[in-house]
């Protein structure tokens, strides 16, 4: 699968704005994609490690850890939101 991964807030500072992924083994869940990304670099391993509060959106809609990621999706990872 090919995916666009975007990061916001503290994750953006640690990992950059976005990554284009190709050849991601599918089908894959949000949690699976997070583990896949965490295996990439030490910075990814730290920013996305289990136990850290990381939220996700698929194609700009909030998604749970067990949601399936469709091919071609824009997947965003970010910390809990703090607007208002």
């Amino acid at each position, binding site marked *: 699968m090919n995916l666009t991964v975007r990061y916001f807030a503290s994750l953006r500072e640690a990992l950059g704005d976005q990554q284009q992924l190709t050849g991601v083994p599918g089908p894959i869940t949000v949690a699976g994609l997070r583990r896949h990304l965490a295996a990439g670099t030490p910075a990814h391993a730290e920013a996305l490690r289990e136990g850290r*509060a990381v*939220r996700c959106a698929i194609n*700009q809609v*909030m998604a749970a850890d067990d949601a399936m990621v469709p091919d071609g999706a824009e997947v965003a990872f*970010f910390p*809990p939101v703090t*607007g208002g």
Partner: protein
Amino acid sequence: MGTPRVRIQTAPFDLGAEVRALHEADLGVGAVTSFVGTVRDRNGVVPVGQGGPIQRMELEHYPGMTEAAIEGMIDEAYKRFDIRAARVIHRVGPLEPGDSIVLVAVASAHRGESFKACEFLMDYLKTQAPFWKKEHTPQGAQWVDARVSDDQALARWGIRVDNASGPAPSQGPV
């Protein structure tokens, strides 16, 4: 209908103009409730004596998703409450203590519905709209932590979220 219901902007907003716009064109409106959130000079979570005064705040958002998420919240407010108009303005970029951050304004025929819808929209926005605050103090900059109490505020409306804590956001009516 020229003005969008949701605006994300760096510029300040004019509360009076926004409230007027909500009722001037609709004489069936008998009540407008507005909420304005402003930047504090201190972090309400950090114990007294820890953490410095906030000199500056930066607000980041997810362009496209933020607007769509709030549009969806307004749609939900229309389903739940008998309201006639709603508007949400959220500022992003650098802000200073005393600056306005967010405006939620709701119009209805009678006050009860607009009071409730305004609080509902604010509770929803706090936990589900993609914004992130970074505080700058003399000790350095840090991202603001989400609060469990905000998740609990939304739970009052029958919507369970785990933004501040928990393994993943699980959204929707309980």
